[in-house]
Each structure stands twice: as structure tokens, then as C-alpha cells.
């Protein structure tokens, strides 16, 4: 019964958040004169078409990795809004290195992946350094670093530097990675499923094991729960903060790697921005749990893939952006409320156990 109660409160927040968002969207739909129920039905059927499912799964992999990167930061109470800059700089440098080397496949692929992780980790460690040594909020430094990363990429992507001019349009891109540097895709449901998804699964398993079954993971969680207590018990807490930030950036460097290795084989400005917010939202929705994040990531990409269906109903598909903002706010608010309710329940339990069994104590309970 106790366990059921716990499970109920754990699920209450995300369910409430999603319900709130659905109601919010329904109101907008009604306001636009569309029938919410039929629109949701349209989204559901459009999203579960077989070729869309494959695209969703591929997108899920990228979102999942961004979510894991954010979740690692959350364990340390770090808010890694820099995932955007980290991932784009990482994929860009990985594409440059991949395009410049011609190694056998078993070296080329790991080299590209490793480059991405290292670049992401290095870029993230700037804000980690500033946080530890200068006590600067990682949110502020990462917001600034995101813009700097964008500027750097555009600068380096010029044809006179590291980039190439695209054939058809004037879209800039990096040189093509040779075929030895690509990962295969699976033909399922008439689509191309990236094999890079297996790496993402491995990352999820590794994340869970390292965090829950290793001394390092214990130290990390301990520092996140109480910086001072961890320090007092001999953990080098500032170092843990720095390493966590770099680790989060390293995983962020894998975001979009599936697209690079399995599909485009080149970096261009078409690689989307906004993964940081998505990652943070997914980590919040999934409560930093590897499976929770995966479910949330699939839900998120399902919505996005189905968004064009909204246009058919005469609803601007941009409301997906509003939906995402609402989901984030609703989730966090719901968790905060649930946290307060469960805490009050616990306090009441403790109070009931402690209170002397006289009338006065029961009166105070009300």
C-alpha cells in the first residue's frame, strides 16, 4: 500500500503536467475553431505511421542523449543549458576531423565519436572551471558560451577556412566524411533506422551503472545532495562539480552524432538548435531516470513529428513550441507541488508517531 502510494505520487506530477498541457492546447484549438479531439486523433494517427515511427526513433536517440547529458548535470544540481553549444561545436569538430582523415572503419568511427565527446567535454569544462574557481553560475556562462559557439562555427565554416560551399545552394558545410567513417542503418518499416541508437542504449546503461553502482557515482550524488557534507566526508567536491560538467558536455557531444554518422556525413547549419532546453525538459520529465528519459524523449519526438498534421487543421504548428514551454513549466510546478504534499505526508507520519497519545495532539493534527 505504501509502495503504491509512492508510485502514485511519482507518476502524479508528469501525468498532471501532460494533462494540463493537453487542456491548454485544447483551449487554443477551440479558440482557433478546431475540434481538439479530432486534432489529437489526427496527431496520433499521423505520428504512428510506419515511416514516421522510424524518424521518431532516430530523433529519440538524439533527444535521449541530450536528456542524459542534462540528467548528469541535475545529479549535481548543475543546470547545463550549454548543451546546445557543446553539441554543435562537438559535431562540427567531429565532422571536420572525420572529413580530413582516411582511416579504416574500426579506427575512423571511434575517432569521430571520441572527437565529439572530447570537444563537448572541453567546451563544457570552461563553464565548469568558472563555476568551481570563480563561483560563477553555470547558467550565465553557458548562455554566453552558446552564442560564442554559434559565432565560432559560422566563422570556421566559411569556405576559406574549414568549410565547403554546398553544390545546390549556398548552404555551408564541412567536407564529406569518407564511407569508412559511417555507421550502417537498418531497413525497417520502409525507413532507415540509425544503428547509432545502440550507442545511445549503451550510454543509458552505463549512466545507470556508474551512477548507482560505483564509488564515483556515489560521490557524485552525495556532492549533489549536499556539497558541504560531501566535502566534510572527504570527497573533493569542487573536483566532482568540474568532472560532472565535463561529463555532461561529453555526452552532449554525442547528441546529433547519429545524424552525422548514419545520415548526413557532413556538418551544416541545418543541424538544429534548442537541444539544451529539450534535454533539460526531458531530464525533468523523466526524473533523471534512464528509462524515464527514454519514454519522455520518444513522446517529445512523436509530438514534433506529428506537428505538421496541425497545419492541416488550420492550426499553426508553432503551437508545439508553446506546448513545449508549457510542458516544462507544468512539469516543474507539478513536481514542486507533489514534493510539498509528500513532505507534508511524511511530517504528519512522523508527527503522529512522535506525538503523545492525548486529545491535544490529535487536535493539532488537523
Amino acid at each position, binding site marked *: 500500500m505504501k509502495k503504491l502510494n509512492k508510485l502514485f505520487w511519482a507518476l502524479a506530477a508528469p501525468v498532471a503536467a501532460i494533462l494540463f498541457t493537453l487542456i491548454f492546447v485544447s483551449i*487554443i484549438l477551440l479558440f*482557433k475553431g478546431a475540434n481538439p479531439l479530432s486534432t489529437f486523433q489526427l496527431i496520433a494517427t499521423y505520428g504512428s505511421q510506419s515511416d514516421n515511427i522510424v524518424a521518431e526513433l532516430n530523433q529519440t536517440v538524439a533527444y535521449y542523449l541530450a536528456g542524459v547529458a542534462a540528467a548528469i548535470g541535475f545529479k549535481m544540481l548543475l*543546470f547545463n*543549458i550549454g548543451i546546445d553549444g557543446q553539441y554543435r561545436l562537438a559535431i562540427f569538430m567531429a565532422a571536420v576531423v572525420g572529413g580530413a582523415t582516411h582511416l579504416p572503419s574500426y579506427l575512423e568511427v571511434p575517432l569521430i565519436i571520441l572527437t565529439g565527446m572530447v570537444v563537448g567535454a572541453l567546451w563544457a569544462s*570552461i563553464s565548469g572551471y*568558472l563555476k568551481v574557481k*570563480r*563561483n*560563477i*553560475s553555470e*547558467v*550565465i*556562462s553557458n*548562455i*554566453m*558560451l552558446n*552564442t*560564442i559557439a*554559434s*559565432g*565560432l562555427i*559560422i*566563422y570556421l565554416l566559411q569556405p576559406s577556412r574549414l568549410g565547403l560551399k554546398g553544390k545546390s545552394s549556398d548552404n555551408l558545410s564541412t567536407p564529406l566524411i569518407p564511407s569508412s567513417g559511417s555507421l550502417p542503418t537498418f531497413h525497417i518499416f520502409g525507413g532507415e533506422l540509425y544503428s547509432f541508437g545502440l550507442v545511445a542504449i549503451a550510454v543509458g546503461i552505463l549512466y545507470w551503472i556508474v551512477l548507482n553502482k560505483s564509488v564515483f557515482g556515489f560521490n557524485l550524488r552525495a556532492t549533489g545532495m549536499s556539497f558541504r557534507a560531501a566535502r566534510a566526508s572527504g570527497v573533493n567536491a569542487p573536483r566532482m562539480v568540474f568532472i560532472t560538467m565535463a561529463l555532461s558536455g561529453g555526452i552532449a557531444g554525442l547528441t546529433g552524432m547519429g545524424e552525422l554518422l548514419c545520415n548526413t556525413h557532413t556538418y551544416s547549419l541545418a543541424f538544429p538548435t534548442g537541444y539544451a*532546453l529539450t534535454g*533539460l525538459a526531458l531530464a*525533468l520529465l523523466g526524473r533523471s531516470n534512464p528509462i524515464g528519459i527514454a519514454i519522455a524523449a520518444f513522446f517529445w519526438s512523436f509530438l514534433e513529428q506529428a506537428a505538421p498534421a496541425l497545419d492541416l487543421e488550420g492550426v*499553426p504548428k*508553432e*503551437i*508545439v*513550441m*508553446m*506546448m*513545449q*514551454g*508549457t510542458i*516544462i*513549466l507544468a512539469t*516543474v*510546478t507539478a513536481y*514542486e*507541488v507533489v514534493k510539498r504534499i509528500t513532505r507534508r505526508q511524511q511530517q504528519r507520519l512522523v508527527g503522529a508517531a512522535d506525538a503523545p497519545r492525548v486529545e491535544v495532539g490529535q487536535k493539532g493534527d488537523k
Partner: protein
Amino acid sequence: MSTLKGNRLWKIITSPSRMMLTVAAIIILISLIRQFTGVDDITSPGATGATIRFTIPILMAGLGGLWAERSGVINIGLEGMMILGTWFGAWFGFLYGPWVGIFAGAVGGAIAGLLHAFLTVRVGIDQAVSGLAINLLGAGTARFLSGVFFIGKGGDVNISPQVSSTGSFTVPGLSPLLTTLAHKHILVISDIAGVSAGLVTKINWASLVMFLALPITAWILWKTRFGLRMRFCGENPVAAESLGVNVYRTRFIAMAVSGALAGLGGAYISIVSTGNYLEGQTAGRGYIGLAAVIFGNWTPVGVLGGSVLFGLTDALRVRQSTSVHALLLVVIVLAGVYGLTKLRKKDWKGFITGILIAVLVLAYYMINKTVPDEFVTFFPNLTTILVLAFLSQRLRPPAMAGAPYRKGEEG
């Protein structure tokens, strides 16, 4: 005792006479550079006018950030509030005239500010999460509303119909006199005349009105009882509450003002700078406003300094890219002077850093003819990172800005 000494030192550094000297030194330096490089646009009246147009939105966002952070709430949602300001400003400006539009922009921003206050102060969620979500919501809402309202009224999904101008004024007599003086290219005098001419020629009424927000903010925050209480909430909310200050209410008011100021900045962009709403026209100025707050060390005059610096680089980039290149010389001189003062104090690390930066920038200056546009775009962001990295001991943010606070709970 040590804090008292620190305060006195701070007063001397920021004293009016010292500030005048600094300003004079910078003017002389810039006019020398202009003479030396022949880049006359740096101090021309036109460049000053453009600088004002680029500075005002950043200043408004910066003051918004100042209000929020002084009351203890970090407002990362400034960008979203600005976007709402651009949209509401343009739409109501189109319907009822530009001044109503500016007011509507402030209201739009204030609504988002109150949402942020409700979520972070009342509900108690993380301030960064709320701010970022508001940025997303602001962008999404503006996009959605554009699709609903603009089509069929002379606009489109990402552009609004044209808003009429707020009008501008020129100080008669003074303006032509200063302009002719500026064109004579006399050392220092022409530079001062050029900048002054820019300050009295074709100044938009909206610029003037919005600029008033700066002295009003300074007055409220430092000269009124409410301002004292508000800063108290940012420094130590628990103590403030125990002395009878209503922390929640104070923060709600501060956030409403913060959002309204950001909204005004947005309305300025859409009504004055471009004359209509364009999607994405704030281009991260909310974040730059945040940067100006840090650069300005959480003081109104400092925020103005940061806004002018960032506005100036923006304006020069748009006008003439060689101007930005010439400004590198200022960086070289400042870094060199910084290094030399450190030498006097036998601070070797500081000396080497200063000289190294000076030499590296000098080398870049000699090799290249221009500064790439991409670098100028992220100049404010880079400056902020550098200020945070090298001057963080000098910075004094409100002690409890960003920290969660619940009524009746310690810490």
C-alpha cells in the same frame, strides 16, 4: 572593518571626479586612435545616433535585469519578455498609434514578468527553468499570435503591418553648430562635438522617454524606502521578512517592473528601430541585457556603461566594419595599461596576462584588415565571460539573487 575600507575604496573609484577623468581619458584615447587610423566614423554624429538606437533596448533589458536581481530573482526570461514587447508593441502600435503600442509592450512584458514571479516566488520552482521556459513561451506565443492577427491586415506570419513613427526632435542652433565642428577633424574637440551633435540631432522622443527609466530606477532603488526594502530582499530575505518586509509582494512588484522594462525595450525595437514586428528581431538582446547587468556590477550607471559599450559595437558593425577594427587599439592600450599597473604591484600573473593580451591583439590588428562579423556578434558574450573570469573578485552581485526562498523557512 574591512568592509568599511572596501566601501570607501569603492566610493573613491566610482566618485564623480574619478569617473570624469576616466571618461576624459577614453575620449582622448579614442580621438587619438581616430586621428591615427583615419577611421572618422567612430565619433561621427551618425554613429552616435546609431549607438543610441542600439543602446536603448539593451539598456531597458539591463535595467529589467537589475530590478529583478536586486530583489533576489534572476530573470533569464528577459528575452521572452522582450519578444512579447515587440509583438504587443507592434500590434497595438498599428491599431492605436505608437505611444499606445509602447505602453502595450510594457504590459505584455509585465504579464510575463508576473508569471515568472508567480512560478518562482509563489510556487518556488527553479528560476533558471522558469526563465528559459518563458523564453520559449514568449517566442511561441508571438509566433502563434502573428499567424492569428497579422494575416489579412498587411502583415504575415512573421511580420506585422507598419507602425507610424513616434517622431523625433533636433535641438535648434546647437545641432548644426556641433555638426560643422565635427567635420573639421580637430583632435579631441571634433570628437566631443561629433558625439554631442549625435546626442542633439534627430533624437527619437521614445529614446528620450525610455532613457528616463535609468535615473528613475536609480532614484527608486537608492533613495526611496521601497528601494531599500527591495535591495534588502535581494541581500537577505530571511532578515527582511523578520523585520516586517513582505518579501513575496516586493518581489512580485520588482518582477512586474522588470518585465515591463524588458517589454519597453522590445517595443522600442519593433516601433522605433524597424517600424514593425519581425520574427526573431530581438536576436538575443535579452541575454545581452543580462550581460550588461553583470558588466555593470549590478548598478544603474554600470548597466548604462555596459549597454553603451555593447550598443556601440553593434552600431559600428552595422555601419562600417573598419571602425570595430580600429577599436581593437583601445583594447590593446587598456590591456597594456592593466598589465603595467599590475607590474607596479609586483603581480606577475596579472602583468603577464595583460601584456600577453595586448601583444596578441596587436598581432591580430597588424595581420588583419577587419574583424570578422561573427566575432563582433558575440563580443558582448565574450566580454561578459572575460569580466566574470578575471574581475569576479570585484563583482558584487546581490547575495541571495537566484537562491530559493520560502516564507517561514530558514535559508
